[in-house]
């Protein structure tokens, strides 16, 4: 910090001394222009020399193999060093990646960090639709009416039969619902009162090979929690990832506080990290949040065998895709694995407790709830038992996940495979007179043309109205202002529309997952559907590329 300011003063004084030295020679007004021009040229020259020297220095630092991850080898201080005050809990040398672009949608209805005593029971489900790229009709191993145990394989994809998808609870398979063209929607299991787990064999972590470990993880159903970038699909066991990324904070609107979720899970989390460490030859990156007043949970801070990267900024700073981009960007051909922080616990529990226990902390949030809550639930738990007697009115929409990336579910539906959040928001299908000119209620926006921007800290109620109709791309620079990546989203989307493979790759489609452009979609003045467009682009590349 101090260093940075000294460097800045030094540079300014060098530049201005050249100016002063020359200005003394002049005096006559008639030649003022020529002198002024000469001074300008001189200043530019000095600046050019400084810049070139500076660049050479940085190149040299790179060539010497110094890992300059986040460190500043330039004579120029970074903006973040000057203005980005580091939080107190960080010591001086830890670099913080400052992300300016983004937007925290100020929504009301976040739960207080206390666990509600709701016991989630009843039906649980596992849905093939939650997995990107899965074939619509997987091979199902149980018929309706049969009994399963938690951890028993329910189905596998015929294209990748080694990956097994396990039942979250024990009980009776009550229904297998089908959608279009007989594709499987979900497999619903009515949970027993007392969950019985499939017996899991002992595994010796110390003297195992990577292959046997992968075999073990696949066999016991925890593999689907490991996803890969690019494409955001379940990881391929045959790949060796160049690194593994875990984000320890969720910056999405009304997302659960993962620090709270980690209470008492330290042992499981560390175990999970140890296992992941055996799966990659590269590093395990842990993305930590530097925007909070308090320091992150000690579970994250004390994690061993990982590289900790600090990020400061609004949403989507907590998205793992953004963190990858700023730490170890994905190039064509790279494979990086990612995991949700809470899912690492599941991995750890498999070894610590010898059972397939998918329990996680779920935030039941949203302004349409009487009281937002934190509850504990297993994967695929039913929504009904989470929101029962807690809904403020009936014109609502329930979303499994956050309001940007979640999936709309019925009240009788179930939590998505990767989700640890349920959001309830208002279904607003009303006409509003001159709503585009004078909105009668405050509504979230990145635009500065609404007066609510003047009220800092104002929380708004989420509602589902589109606030306008679908249009062609008109406004520019908007997506860039909420996507903290060196990517040109609008041009990328246009290349997806025209199906130009080379351009999609060139413009960085491998670095993006739909969740990363969700905020662009929110902000879009033309109301374009960017997440599904990106998903479509990724799918074409995955299938044909």
């Amino acid at each position, binding site marked *: 910090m101090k260093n940075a300011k000294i460097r800045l003063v030094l540079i300014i004084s060098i530049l201005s001394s050249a100016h002063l030295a020359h200005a003394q020679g002049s005096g006559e007004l008639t030649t003022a222009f020529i002198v002024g021009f000469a001074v300008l040229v001189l200043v530019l020259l000095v600046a050019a020399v400084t810049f070139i020297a500076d660049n050479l220095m940085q190149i040299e630092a790179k060539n010497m193999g110094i890992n300059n991850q986040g460190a500043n080898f330039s004579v120029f201080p970074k903006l973040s060093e000057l203005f980005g005050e580091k939080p107190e809990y960080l010591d001086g040398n830890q670099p913080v990646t400052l992300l300016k672009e983004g937007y925290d949608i100020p929504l009301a209805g976040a739960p207080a960090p206390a666990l509600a005593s709701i016991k989630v029971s009843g039906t649980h489900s596992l849905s093939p639709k939650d997995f990107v790229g899965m074939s619509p009709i997987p091979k199902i191993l149980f018929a309706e009416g049969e009994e399963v145990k938690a951890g028993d394989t329910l189905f596998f994809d015929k294209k990748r039969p080694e990956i097994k998808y396990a039942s979250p609870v024990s009980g009776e398979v009550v229904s297998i619902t089908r959608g279009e063209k007989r594709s499987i929607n979900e497999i619903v299991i009515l949970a027993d009162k007392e969950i019985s787990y499939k017996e899991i064999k002992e595994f010796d972590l110390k003297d195992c090979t990577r292959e046997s470990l992968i075999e073990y993880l696949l066999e016991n159903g925890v593999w689907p929690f490991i996803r890969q970038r690019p494409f955001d699909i379940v990881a391929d066991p045959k790949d060796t990832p160049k690194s593994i990324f875990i984000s320890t904070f969720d910056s999405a609107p009304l997302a659960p506080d993962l620090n709270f979720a980690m209470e008492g899970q330290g042992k499981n989390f560390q175990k999970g990290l140890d296992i992941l460490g055996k799966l990659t030859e590269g590093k395990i990156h842990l993305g930590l949040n530097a925007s909070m007043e308090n320091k992150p949970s000690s579970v994250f801070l004390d994690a061993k065998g990982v590289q900790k990267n600090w990020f400061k900024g609004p949403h989507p700073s907590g998205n793992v895709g953004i963190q990858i981009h700023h730490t170890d960007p994905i190039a064509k051909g790279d494979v990086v694995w990612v995991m949700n922080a809470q899912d690492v616990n599941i991995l750890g529990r498999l070894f610590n407790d010898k059972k397939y226990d998918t329990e996680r902390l779920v935030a039941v949030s949203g302004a349409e709830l009487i009281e937002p809550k934190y509850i504990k639930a297993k994967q695929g738990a039913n929504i009904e038992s989470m929101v029962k007697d807690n809904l403020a009115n009936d014109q609502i929409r329930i979303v499994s996940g956050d309001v940007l990336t979640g999936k709309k579910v019925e009240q009788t539906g179930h939590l998505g495979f990767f989700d640890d959040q349920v959001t309830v928001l208002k279904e607003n299908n009303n*006409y509003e007179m001159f709503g585009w000119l004078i909105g009668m209620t405050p509504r979230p926006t990145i635009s500065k043309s609404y007066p609510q921007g003047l009220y800092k800290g104002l929380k708004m109620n989420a509602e589902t109205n589109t606030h306008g109709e679908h249009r062609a791309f008109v406004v520019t620079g908007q997506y860039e202002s909420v996507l903290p990546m060196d990517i040109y989203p609008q041009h990328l989307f246009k290349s997806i529309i025209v199906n130009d493979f080379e351009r999609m790759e060139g413009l960085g489609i491998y670095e993006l997952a739909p969740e990363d452009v969700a905020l662009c979609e929110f902000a879009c003045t033309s109301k374009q559907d960017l997440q599904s467009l990106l998903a479509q682009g990724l799918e074409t590349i995955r299938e044909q590329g």
Partner: protein
Amino acid sequence: MKPILNFLEKIEPDKEKSPFLHTLFDGFHTFLFSPNHVTKDGVHVRDAMDLKRTMVLVVLALQLCYVFGTYNIGHQHYLALGLHTEGFFDGLGAKLLYGLLQILPIFIVAHVVGLGIEFYFAAKKGHPIEEGFLVSGALIPLIMPPDIPLWMLALAVAFAVVIGKEAFGGTGMNVVNIALLARVFVFFAYPTEISGDLCWVSYDYNLLHSIFGMQAGTLEALGLDSLPEKFASFKAFALANTPDGWTGATPLGLAAKGGWDAVISSSQYSPSQMWWGTIPGSIGETCKPLVLLGTLMLLATKIASWRVMLSMLIGAVFTGFIMNITTGDPTSFLGVPWQYHFYMGSFFFAMAFMATDPVTAASTNTGKWIYGFFIGSIGMIIRVLNPAYPEGWMLAILFMNVFAPLIDHYVLESNISKRLKRITSAQ
């Protein structure tokens, strides 16, 4: 609200039988009520901003220019006749009324023609009416000379909307700025109406003026009962009877002949007049402070790109500065000190409202810097060095509109090659 909605539901035309009427109905319906659409896949919450609001905010930013433009048409008219010359408030009512009756037909014709074509194409293509023409329609009257013949205006608007926009696919697809395309059409098709010394002041009276008795009143004030027969038109009469020293030449016209000295030594213009805009010119661009107020609004609401504005300013200052260095002669156009260039012509209007059009400007942030700088620079070169065109911004912006995709292309290529380098360095 409910009764209005019910009424609208009742009168809704059938989509199959009369697509044009339905499109029209739909357009006005979404104008009156923001639609009841809800989000489907993807995000569940949408930003409050939509294209309608974006466009209308630009139109709002232009309103002060409209008010002043209305006044200034009247002001210049009476000045040319040698009446109400005692300053700003002398004959304020008459000036405003004259100006209003002059600008109203221009505004109406521009909108009827432009929106008519827009509605027609929307109905033909079966998509909802898009808001693009809201801004173009508000801009076109402001950049036209005050006494432009209405048929010419109609032709220009039709050309701009059909060839400039609809041919490329509608709002968001056009390559060049629609408003400027309308102006450049008049400029090249009917050069006598939009260049020279005489076109910037409105002399003639139209039907509305005579309905309101403006014509008779003026003539009485002149001490005349009717138009002398030897003058074929009132314009010729007015020109023959203008006060001594009145030329009607614009500051830029004077500067082209004799530099800054010629401008300030003419009895007509002082720098303060040029700054406040009580000079002949296109309808809406003369008053710099009001244009700047509109600019501030666009900047505060972040509707327009500050990058384009700033880099265009830098480009103009830089080029003006270079020109100053090349000559020490204060009587040449090159020698006009760079800061005085902002007093003359329509730099600020072009900067705030024309160059920043997001569809036709460069679409990458880096590209916007380059795009703006070149507009500023090229505009200055056309203004000063080109003997044929008195003002440079229109042509400079259109020129850079065409080059904007190329600029973007190179910005994107550099992004792509940066990404490619990452692969090769990893291997």
